């Protein structure tokens, strides 16, 4: 099947060679009836577009198919324009047909954008709202919608948590605003959801990012980390069928760069001899090499997507129906993701005053995950650390234990790991819009999400080595279901009196989220055959381990908004939202979140009309308070018992319970206040446009599990409102766009800089440590007065070159020349931990460029981060002095004698080393990178050919993702987020699944 798609894609490249631009320009009479059409870049007719002869009032309007007829004389210049698009001019030189293609102008101020519980003209917006350019986005191939956001919007950082197919994404809008979860809220067609992985990217009509408090306040309690608003497609006038598909191959873009067997053998001997042992490998040069990286790699992993959509509209209503299949194999064996999704969006004009409709999305996602983000056994780690002199298998075909060390055999890890995940998800809403009187509308929308997920895990019986074995087969099944119901009712009143325009909104909302999980685990499945992998077949099924519980959250909200504008120049917005959450005790349930913002359209002032270069200038200022409780689990206000604290009495298990936490019924809403200043500008008739923003965001009363002194004996620290965090930031987005029917080009870029500071952690000398690495040390520490989660360990000062240098200090004992020297900053004879840098970048940036000529279009997206540090967990192995594991190729530069090397990364070999592997800046690397995220070259077949084929659009393209990456980072990929660990573990590389480089080709046909 996959081969078929590849074949199809290849075939597509042949077509352009035969296609010729037949857009002939026959000359006829000097004046006459001009026929033509006006269409968007996507081939959709622009109904109602105006076409006028420049300098006259003669003109006409495009009909339902985008066609027009107009009397013109040769030499006339025809100007086509359409709301939200660039205007286009063509000279009539006697052509029989003039076809305009109007590019969407996202900078158009007339555009109506979604602002949460309503819409607003872009020109009137006073908050910090960024639009995602859907045209740019359509030129990227992304598996999930969140990936599509990467590099698109200033101040929105998107980092992949894992390159595994279907892997998670970390999105931060204006940085890390709290020590709690800093993920934004996603609102899909009005429903608040936690992730957007399930959405077919082809179904999206528009995406808006609400960044500051005045924009997100309408989402009160959930909006403190920003909001991503997604609206899915509606049918448009006429009817259309569209098929789009692509297929491609994926590979690692970088290798593990480890030593071959004979070089490693020499270094291992050197290490053993240094430790006073005999050299264990007699002739290293004769060792047979095993490339473990090859054992985990899935070369040319396939990826494909097929998407079919039908849409249409008439006076009675509109519809949009789509089906999508997306499939991706991982670049590491036995990892994959597949999504099958259907969508039906429609609405009906039942009465002049009543419109009802629904949006329904059903998706099934299946994925296979391997062992990741575990510094001991993850596939990436073992493929690096496993010594290259051990064979993969013995002669009898069984997996080989390590000859020289007991690192897990990665090929066996893959063979014996069976994780299968399936999620069924239904998301949708039904709504009614009622026009009560002129300007007064009521909307009621009930949204729901029902999802059911199941994870299967099977471990067969195997023996590879004493540390990699399983003596009894085990099969476990976890399932979880979630039901979210959200009922939103809003009343909207719009009124314009002279120069005064009002737009008021009042509403309330109920939200409930019921989550349930159950699991069981049985031993002794008699066969590894997947066909008998069922609970009933387990001989140990009578002794199953079972677990399960529920989790319920309720929220009740009232909301309101008033927009007022005077002469369209002076704009004011006030938002208010009150939320009650079931997570807090009765006395602290309600939180009240106001916001105010104002805008001044300076360019509309009369004194500005003479300045023709600047056609848009707007200054905005806003302030607001937003609540947060999102990531706090419920039931923190009481002390609850927990089973599983078992012991043995009389040789039998005595079930035990304990109270691991300590309830705190004083907890209440965490709040963040943001002050935002923004400037929107457009120069040269809108060709150059942009936005600059500066903000200060302070989060207080952070809901934290502040570690308490352990003599309290409380295992789970109680949740408190403690601490304060401050982020100040600057954002700039620029777009230069020129539009000529022959050569079209645009260049865009964005830049974001954030200063993060943990102002307070509740107690004077409080600190919070990040998770352990190798059971040996905490990698990060968070303290007041610094950015969150800084790396924490010893600072190195080169290598001891000789005994005299060692004798001159007392802080390090048991060291010899060639060992790492650590800094004893206070000279007290003891080593001190110091802060070694921050995982947060100094700034992030992106560039987008697109170029179009005739039927061709080329677009490129570049994205980067600068100044962040990464803890490279793989270096713990690759730069170990013991050579117990395989080493990085650069370890051939190790210290071999006085003066040979003074870089702390490359100490001497010593199998008995305990000095060089301490937590230090040896493992801290510059994580900056710049990446050509996407490059696409497409070709639109000419109208005449396309219409001969009875099509309205035919486009083919080739695409490359992650084509080039510029970085000094030595790990497999510098783009690492957090995976399964807390935000305090940012930038800790425990063997991340890296991003793939993808080459693909695709086709879009519209009927």
């Amino acid at each position: 099947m996959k081969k078929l798609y590849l074949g199809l894609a290849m075939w597509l490249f042949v077509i352009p060679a035969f296609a010729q631009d037949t857009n002939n320009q026959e000359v006829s009479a000097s004046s006459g009836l001009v026929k033509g059409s006006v269409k968007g870049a996507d081939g959709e007719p622009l109904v109602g577009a105006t076409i006028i002869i420049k300098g006259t009032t003669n003109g006409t309007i495009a009909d339902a198919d985008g066609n027009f007829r107009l009397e013109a004389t040769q030499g006339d210049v025809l100007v086509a324009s359409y709301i939200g698009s660039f205007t286009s001019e063509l000279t009539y030189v006697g052509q029989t047909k003039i076809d305009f293609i109007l590019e969407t102008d996202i900078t158009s101020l007339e555009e109506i954008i979604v602002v949460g519980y309503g819409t607003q003209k872009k020109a009137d917006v006073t908050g910090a709202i960024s639009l995602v350019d859907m045209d740019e986005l359509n030129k990227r191939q992304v598996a999930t919608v969140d990936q599509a956001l990467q590099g698109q919007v200033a101040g929105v950082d998107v980092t992949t948590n894992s390159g595994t197919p279907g892997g998670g994404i970390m999105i931060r809008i204006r940085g890390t605003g709290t020590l709690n979860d800093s993920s934004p809220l996603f609102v899909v067609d009005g429903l608040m959801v936690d992730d957007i992985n399930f959405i077919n990217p082809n179904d999206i009509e528009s995406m808006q990012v609400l960044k500051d408090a005045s924009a997100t306040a309408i989402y009160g309690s959930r909006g403190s980390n920003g909001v991503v608003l997604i609206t899915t497609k509606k049918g448009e006038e006429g009817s259309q069928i569209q098929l789009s598909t692509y297929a491609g191959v994926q590979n690692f873009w970088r290798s593990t760069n480890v030593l071959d067997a004979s070089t490693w053998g020499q270094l291992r001997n050197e290490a053993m001899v240094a430790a006073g042992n005999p050299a264990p490998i007699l002739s290293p040069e004769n060792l047979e090499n095993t490339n473990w990286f090859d054992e985990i790699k899935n070369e040319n992993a396939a990826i494909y997507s097929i998407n079919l959509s039908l849409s249409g509209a008439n006076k009675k209503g509109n519809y949009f129906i789509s089906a999508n299949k997306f499939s991706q194999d991982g670049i590491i064996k036995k990892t994959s993701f597949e999504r099958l999704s259907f969508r039906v969006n429609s609405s009906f004009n039942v009465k002049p005053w009543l419109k009802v409709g629904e949006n329904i999305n059903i998706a099934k996602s299946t994925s296979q995950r391997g062992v990741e983000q575990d510094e001991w056994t993850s596939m990436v780690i073992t493929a690096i650390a496993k010594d290259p002199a051990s064979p993969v298998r013995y002669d009898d075909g069984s997996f080989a234990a390590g000859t020289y060390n007991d690192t897990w055999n990665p090929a066996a890890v893959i063979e014996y790991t069976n994780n299968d995940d399936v999620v069924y998800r239904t998301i949708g809403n039904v709504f009614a819009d009622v026009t009560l009187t002129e300007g007064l509308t009521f909307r009621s929308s009930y949204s729901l999400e029902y999802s059911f997920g199941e994870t299967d895990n099977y471990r067969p019986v195997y023996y590879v080595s004493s540390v990699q074995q399983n003596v009894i087969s085990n099969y476990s099944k976890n399932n979880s279901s979630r039901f979210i119901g959200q009922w939103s009712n809003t009343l909207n009143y719009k009124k314009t009196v002279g120069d005064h325009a009002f737009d008021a909104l009042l509403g309330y909302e109920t939200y409930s989220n019921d989550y349930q999980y159950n699991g069981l685990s049985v031993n002794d499945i008699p066969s590894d055959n997947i066909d008998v992998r069922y609970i009933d077949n387990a001989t140990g099924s009578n002794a199953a381990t079972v677990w399960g519980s529920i989790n319920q959250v309720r929220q009740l909200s009232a909301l309101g908004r008033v927009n007022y504008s005077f002469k369209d120049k002076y704009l004011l917005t006030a938002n208010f939202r009150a939320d009650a959450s079931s997570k807090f005790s009765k006395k602290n349930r309600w939180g009240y979140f106001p916001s105010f913002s104002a805008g001044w359209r300076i360019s509309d002032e009369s004194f500005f009309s003479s300045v023709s270069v600047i056609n848009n200038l707007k200054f905005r200022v806003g302030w607001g308070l937003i609540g947060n409780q999102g990531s706090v689990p419920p039931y923190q206000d009481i002390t609850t018992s927990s089973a599983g604290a078992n012991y043995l009495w009389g040789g039998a298990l005595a079930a035990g319970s304990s109270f691991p936490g300590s309830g705190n019924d004083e907890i209440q809403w965490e709040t963040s206040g943001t002050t935002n200043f923004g400037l929107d500008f457009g120069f040269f008739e809108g060709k150059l446009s942009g936005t600059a923003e500066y903000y200060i965001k302070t989060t207080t009363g952070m809901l934290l599990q502040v570690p308490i002194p352990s003599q309290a004996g409380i295992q789970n620290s109680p949740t408190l409102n403690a601490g304060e965090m401050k982020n100040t930031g600057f954002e700039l987005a620029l777009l230069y766009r020129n539009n000529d029917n022959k050569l079209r080009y645009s260049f865009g870029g964005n830049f974001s800089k954030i200063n993060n500071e943990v102002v307070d952690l509740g107690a004077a000398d409080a600190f919070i440590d990040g998770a352990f690495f190798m059971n040996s040390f905490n990698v990060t520490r968070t303290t007041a007065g610094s950015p969150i989660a800084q790396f924490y360990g010893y600072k190195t000062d080169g290598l001891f070159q000789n005994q005299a240098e060692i004798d001159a200090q007392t802080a390090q004992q048991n060291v010899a020349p060639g060992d790492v020297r650590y800094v004893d900053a206070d000279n007290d004879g003891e080593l001190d931990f110091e802060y070694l840098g921050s995982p947060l970048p100094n700034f992030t940036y992106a560039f987008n460029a697109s170029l179009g000529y005739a039927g061709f279009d080329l677009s490129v997206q570049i994205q980067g981060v600068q100044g962040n540090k990464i803890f490279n967990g793989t270096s713990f192995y690759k730069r170990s002095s013991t050579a117990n594991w395989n080493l990085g190729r650069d370890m051939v530069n190790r210290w071999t004698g006085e003066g040979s090397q003074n870089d702390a990364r490359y100490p001497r070999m010593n199998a008995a080393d305990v000095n060089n592997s301490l937590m230090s800046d040896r493992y801290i690397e510059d994580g900056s990178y710049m990446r050509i995220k996407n490059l696409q070259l497409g070709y639109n077949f000419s109208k005449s050919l396309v219409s001969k084929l009875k099509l309205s659009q035919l486009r083919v393209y080739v695409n490359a993702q992650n084509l080039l990456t510029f970085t000094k980072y030595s790990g497999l990929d510098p783009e690492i987020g957090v995976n399964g660990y807390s935000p305090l573990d940012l930038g800790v590389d425990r063997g991340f699944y890296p991003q793939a480089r993808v080459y693909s080709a695709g086709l879009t046909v519209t009927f």
Partner: protein
Amino acid sequence: MKNSIYYTTLLLVTVLVMPSCNQDKFLDTPAPTMSDQTFFKDDAAALNALAGVYDPIAWYNFAQLTEWSIGDATSDDAEKGGGGDGDYAEIFVLTNFTSNAENPLIYERWRDLYVGINRANKLIEGITDNDNIESSVRDRVIAEAKFLRGFYNFSLVKTFGAIPIVDHILSPSEYTNPRNTLDECWAFIEKDFKESMANLPKKSQLSTAEMGRATWGAAASFLTKSYIWQQKWTEAGLLATDIVNSGEYDLEPNYADLFIIDTDNGIESVFDIQFADLQSPAWLNGNEGSHLEVMQRSRDARNGGWGFKPTNPGFVR
């Protein structure tokens, strides 16, 4: 227009009335677990919580790791072992006394023992004067909780010297209480052992199903040990004599038999931490088995162990 007014009124009424309907009923979501207010409702609950107080003595960090890594490996009795100095370097730095305060072993011992103390306090507070629990059960359970609290405190003082005494559930303002004096610590430990002796059964009175639970002999023995640590030789001698004369204990006739399964909780056993071989790997905390079997097993291929804590020949001689 009339219709519109009608609908407007209807909708406004809906919009305004709906939210005021029983907000608390909508927002109250009962926790799916027992709270400490409702937990101690009968004898079974008291025993359930008691098993939870025993639980930490078998934890990996304590009995299976820090007892020997801090206790034996730093002495002349045993070495660290394992696969070279870098294998569990946290123990290596303890054995040559170059460890710093960040060493997780030290912290984990402190933390986990205090978890046991907190659990004992929670149980004692939950059932003292609680008439849901039958008085004889209550007395014995409290006695066992006090014995365990004494044992946890004894283990802490052995390693850290003076410690902050925690004899009740701390309020946040008490979290940072300073250390008590060493004398106060020993007095508190002695008090717990003495009080528990009064209500604990003799080992001979334990049913088979109760084997492993604390006895009068266990409390008396640890009290004796506490006397010895304080060099209260007279008290130690008297109490030790009582234990010997109680007739509850004797030496195994054959020393080697101590290490076979048949003598588990045998005549020479005063208080054994109970481990199981219920599942494989048996040594995960939840499985109630001991990690020591694989850690201490010899490292050669035949035995497949990790070779930690090799005993020094001098100790055996």
